C-alpha cells in the first residue's frame, strides 16, 4: 500500500516540476520560491546594515569626540568630487530600477541595456574613487602608508584627529568600493543570464535580488557623502 502511494507521489512531483523547470525542488510553487528569494535578500541586507553600522557607530563616536579634526579632514576632501560620485550612483540606482522593471516586463533588450548602463556607471564611480585616492596619496594623507600632512591640510586641528578621520575615510569608502565591485560582478552575471534568455517575467527574482543589493550599496553612499565630504560645511 505504501509502495503505490510512494510511486504516485513521486510521479506527481516529477510532473509538476517538469512543467516549470525553473522551480527548485524544495519549493512547492514558483511564487513561494520568489518570496523566499526576496525575503532572503532583505535579511542579507539587514546583516549588511549591522556590518556597515559598526563602522558608522565608531565614526559617530569619534566625530563627537574630535569634531575639529573631522571638520578639518573633511574640508580636505573635494566636495565636488563627492557630489559627482553621488550623482553617478543615483543615476545607477535609476538604471538598476529600470533593469528590474524590464526583467519583470520580459523585455530582454531593455534589460541588457539598463544592466550595462548600471555597470558602466558603477565603473565610472570606481574610476572617480580611484582618482580621488591617488590625489590623497599625492597630498600625503594616507594613514599608515604616507601620512605627512602639510600644515594647511590640518587647518588648525590636531594632526592625530585628522589622521583618525582619514582612517575612516579610507575604511568606509574602501569597504563601500569593495561592495560596488562585488555588485558590478553580480550584475555581470545577471547580464550573462539575461543574454542566455534565462530571465523571464516568471523568473526574474534574481535580477530583483541583485537590484536590492545595488540599491543598498547606493544608500550607504547616500550617507557616506554628507558624513565624509560635508562635515562642517564649505562656507
Amino acid at each position: 500500500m505504501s509502495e503505490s502511494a510512494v510511486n504516485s507521489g513521486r510521479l506527481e512531483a516529477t510532473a509538476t516540476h517538469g512543467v516549470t523547470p525553473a522551480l527548485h525542488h524544495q519549493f512547492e510553487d514558483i511564487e513561494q520560491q520568489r518570496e523566499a528569494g526576496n525575503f532572503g535578500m532583505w535579511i542579507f541586507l539587514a546583516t549588511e546594515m549591522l556590518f556597515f553600522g559598526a563602522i558608522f557607530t565608531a565614526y559617530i563616536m569619534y566625530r563627537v569626540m574630535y569634531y575639529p579634526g573631522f571638520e578639518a579632514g573633511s574640508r580636505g576632501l573635494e566636495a565636488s568630487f563627492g557630489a559627482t560620485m553621488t550623482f553617478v550612483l543615483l543615476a545607477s540606482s535609476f538604471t538598476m530600477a529600470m533593469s528590474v522593471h524590464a526583467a519583470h516586463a520580459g523585455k530582454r533588450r531593455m534589460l541588457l541595456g539598463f544592466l550595462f548602463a548600471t555597470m558602466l556607471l558603477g565603473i565610472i564611480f570606481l574610476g572617480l574613487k580611484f582618482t580621488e585616492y591617488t590625489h590623497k596619496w599625492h597630498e600625503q594623507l594616507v594613514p599608515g602608508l604616507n601620512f605627512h600632512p602639510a600644515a594647511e591640510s590640518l587647518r588648525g586641528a590636531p594632526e592625530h584627529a585628522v589622521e583618525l578621520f582619514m582612517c575612516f575615510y579610507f575604511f568606509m569608502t574602501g569597504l563601500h568600493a569593495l561592495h560596488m565591485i562585488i555588485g558590478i560582478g553580480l550584475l555581470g552575471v545577471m547580464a550573462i543570464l539575461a543574454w542566455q534568455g534565462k530571465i523571464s517575467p516568471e523568473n526574474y527574482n534574481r535580477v530583483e535580488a541583485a537590484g536590492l543589493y545595488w540599491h543598498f550599496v547606493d544608500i550607504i553612499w547616500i550617507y557616506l557623502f554628507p558624513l565624509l565630504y560635508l562635515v562642517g560645511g564649505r562656507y
Partner: protein
Amino acid sequence: MSGKTPSVRTYSLVFIALLLLAALTTGIAYVNLGRFNTVAALAIAAVKMCLVALFFMHLWYSPGLTKIVVLAGFFWLALMVSFILADVFTRSWISPPGPFR
C-alpha cells in the same frame, strides 16, 4: 509581491527628486547654518534613503514581514549606537571608586 510595482513614471520622478536632493545637500553645505548644517545633511540623506528604499527597492509594495526585517535592522543599529555613545558620554560623570582607606 508579484503584483504591484512602481511605473516608469514613478521611477523617473523619484530619480529627479533624488538628484534635486543631492544638489540641495551640496548647496546647503556652502551656506553657514552652524550646527544645523549637520542636521540638514542627515535629514536630506534620510529622505533620499527612504525614496530609494520605498520605490526603487519596492519596500512600499512589499509584505509586512519585509518591513519588519528593515525595522529590526534599524532598531539593532540604534541599540548599538546609543549604548556605546551612552558609555562614552557618561564616563566623566562619575569616576570609579578609589582605593579603600
